[in-house]
Structures are given as C-alpha cells and as structure tokens.
C-alpha cells in the first residue's frame, strides 16, 4: 500500500505544506478563517439545535486514523469528499457514490460504512478509519498483507474498499466461515471479478490477526 503510506507522510495537519496538503486545505482564500465557525462541536451548554446554513463552511473536528483534523466543511460535503479532497487521504475511492459498489468503505467507530452516503457533519465526534490507518508503522496490517499474499485484486481500484469491509467484518466476527465471508463482503463489488481470491484473503487475514 505505497499509496496509503504516501498519503500519511504527505499530510501533516499541523501546518505541513506538502503540495497535496496545501491544496487540500483551501481555507484562507476561498472563505476566510474569520467566518469559519465551529458550529457543530457542541460547546459546554449545548443548544437544542445545531445548525449550519446552506453553502456555509464551518470548522469540523474529524478524528481520522487516530489524528485530529480541523477541516472546513459545508453541509453537503460527504465524508468521502472530505477525506480525499481536504485531507488528501486518497486511499478511499469514489465509485458509484450511491451505496452500490463499496469502493468508499471506511470504518466509523469501528464499523464498516459507505463514506459516499455519509455527510461529513455526521462523522462529527466519531472515529474514522481509512485504509491508510491500517498500516502498522511501516508494515502492512494483517488484512492488507493477506490481500497482497493472496493476489486478491487485478486493477486494484476496489481493493481499499474490500480491505476496509474485511477489516470491519473481522472486527465483528474474528473467525468467519466461507459463507459468512461471502455475506460479509457482499457490499463490495469487484469489476475484475477477483472474488475467489478476495474470499481467500479474508480467510487468511483472520489467521494473521489471530497470530498477532
């Protein structure tokens, strides 16, 4: 997952100005920091209603792969677009953007979900894990390693989503049988039809996780 590693290095939220990081952070020119509001991170005396007008960006605190980011988001921004375009975490892939393909799968509070159908504002206060976050230091995590060893992809476009779906499945059910794997992975399509290898990889990943 060289891609994932790059992203992580690229991205220093404490003011790192790698090209991608800078482009991603859009802040000053477009909206002006002054209008950026922290509309939704509930202050001590929480109001009955949190509200954000259409088209108006507010500062949102997102916890992604264990790091806290402040990003400007407007109501219509999806988690998928914020991860990719504002945080430079391009491991998460856009596919159908309609909940049909699974390329955009991430974990939210440890549970697999589609980031294309999640408003960024809905991830407020939750822990997001992307494929970049499965790295264990410089090493691939168990699921990633199993996908490589089992050759569980061809073009690789669906792979980050498959890996995240597998991670979600194994957190819920550490020792799934083949049928459970097939069902657990049914929210992810692979145009290249690498399914047989993907199922093998998930099985292997379960073993890797146990041996850890």
């Amino acid at each position, binding site marked *: 997952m060289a891609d994932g590693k790059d992203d992580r290095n690229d991205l220093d939220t404490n003011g790192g100005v790698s090209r991608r990081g800078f482009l991603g952070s859009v802040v000053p020119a477009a909206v002006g920091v002054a209008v950026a509001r922290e509309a939704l991170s509930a202050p001590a005396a929480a109001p009955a209603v*949190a509200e954000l007008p259409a088209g108006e960006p507010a500062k949102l605190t997102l916890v992604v792969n264990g790091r806290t980011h402040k990003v400007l988001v407007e*109501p*219509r921004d999806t988690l998928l677009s914020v991860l990719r375009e504002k945080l430079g975490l391009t491991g998460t892939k856009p596919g159908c953007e309609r*909940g049909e393909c699974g390329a955009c799968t991430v974990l939210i509070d440890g549970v697999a979900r*589609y980031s294309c159908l999640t*408003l960024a504002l809905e991830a407020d206060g939750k822990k997001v894990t992307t494929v970049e976050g499965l790295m264990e230091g410089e090493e691939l995590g168990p699921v990633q390693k199993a996908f490589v060893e089992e050759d569980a992809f061809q073009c690789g476009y669906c792979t980050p989503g498959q890996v995240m779906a597998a991670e979600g499945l194994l957190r819920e059910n550490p020792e799934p049988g083949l049928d459970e794997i097939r069902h657990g992975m049914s929210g992810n399509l692979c145009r290249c039809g690498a399914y047989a290898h993907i199922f093998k990889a998930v099985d292997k990943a379960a073993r890797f996780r146990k041996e850890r």
Partner: protein
Amino acid sequence: MLPSFRYVRPRTVSEAVKALAAEGARAHAGGTDLLGCLRDGVFDAKSVVSLSGLDDLKGISPTKDGGLKIGALTTLAEVARHPGIAKGWPALAQGAAAAASPQLRNQGTLGGNLCQRPRCWYFRGDFDCARKGGEICYAVEGENTYHAIFGGSGCFIVHPSDTASPLVALRATVKVVGPKGARSLPVEKLFVLPAVDHTRETILAPGEVLTEVLLPPPLEGAKGLYRKVRSRGAWDFALGGVALALSVKDGKVASAGVVLSGVAPTPWRVPEVEKLLVGKALDAKLAAEAAELAVKGAEPMSGNDYKVPLVKGAVEEALLALA
C-alpha cells in the same frame, strides 16, 4: 456533489418536529436513501434535519407486556443480530438481515427502511413521472420487470423495504410524533396505495417523525420467517418474497400473518390466505392451496409475469419450511 442544503441537528424530538415542519425540510436518519435521492435529483431539500442527535430513538428494549420497543434510529444490523428478535420475531430479524448490504445495514435505520423512497428506475431517473407529480407512469408502456403485480393504479412501484412485510405480518405498530402530538398506528396503516395518493408512500405529514416500532408479545407457539427471492444471493432488492408470522397450537395454525414483499406498492397482506390457514394443520396440501390463493387476482404487466409463479413458489416453500 450533492445539491446545497441547510443542515440542522436537533437534540430533542420536539425540536426535530419543528425543524421538519419547515417547507422543504427532509429527515435524515442513516442518510443512505436520502443522500442517494438528493444526488440523483429525485427531490430536493431546503434543509436536511439530522435525527442522529436523538439518542432516545436508538436501541431495543422490552415492553411491560412482553413485547419489544425498537427505536426508529436503531440500525438494521442491530435488529438483525439481536438474539431476542431472532427468537421471538424471526421474520423481522431475517428481513433486516436480508436488506441491502452489510455497510448499509450498519448505517441504515429501521425507521429509514420503512420510509425509504421507491426504486422504480423512472422515479430514480430523469423522468417526470406520475409519482413525481407528472402526468404519466412510464412503467406501463416501458420497462416494468421489477414492478408491481398487485395494487398498482396510476403508479406501479413495489415497496422496497424488507422489514415492512415482516412488521405487518407480526402486527407491529409504529409511534409517530408530529406538530399535533403523538399517535400510534399499525404498520399496515403507515403505507399508502397509489389509488389513494400516488405521490407518497407513507401517511406521514410534514413534521411527523417516526419514533419507534412496537412488537406485540410473541404468541404461544409462534413461528415465522422471511423468504426473499432476488437475482443475486445477497445485496439486492426483492423480486418477490413473503413474511410469515404463524402461531401453532395443538398441531393447528392458531393465527397467521402472511404478507408478500416486492410485488405491490405497499407490503401486500393476503387476508384470504391468513383465513385459510387458521384452524388447519400445516401440510403440503394446505401449503400448495395457500400459495395458489396468494397469487389469485395478480395483474402482471408486460415484463413481470415471472413474479406470479415466483411468489407462489416462495409462499409454498416458506409455509412448508414452517410445517
């Protein structure tokens, strides 16, 4: 990109009701259906009212009478894996487990599953069809492979939900809170046939929020299941299906809920079949007779007559599985 909207996240149901009563406001539970509709321009939203801050509407708890209360924001995954539901109300557990994909079940809620918009491809596509306020139903002359064989008139959608039919079979009720207060009604009464109003699927008025689903206590000798037939083994809407909620006493059916899915604009209850079953021992002959009766009066369209034998077979198989 999604079209622009205002975002509101109330912390109480009454604030949610107020926010939802505003013109152009849309409720957001898991967002899995809402965001798809907004992206495809099926309808628009001036404001999206997120219910995710309403913690009272989450979770499953027993009621005093031995039934179960399921908050509208409970996810389908939670419903599917709840051991109490699997035991006492199996049709619902199986319906929730058969819906959509793992990710969608982790995110989609029971309330949202009941209130989701139909999947007719004209409705989802760029067609100003009758359900969107236009003049005609394009499915009549067009592609109607996945459309209704019962209950259509002016519009021929099938209801997309896999939890609705089980809930009707189980005689569940829903609680709805709106500007005029709270009301409870049978799940069966939540849905609207096109003959009554072909522009809406539920009776919910602006500002009304579905807050909970109530399951009555399981009957003695309760048995049930949900049988869904689809083109793939997983992740697909029903081509047809059936929810059964029976109780058996002394070898005979004492009560029966039989509700078809994927064949009509609402969950399609077949009272004649329910009546036929009661008082008799469930065997192969009765199952065949019931299946025949279940599809009586079906009105297939040009491209969906396969649904008649399909549903008939599903009903027979499902009844035999409980015999």
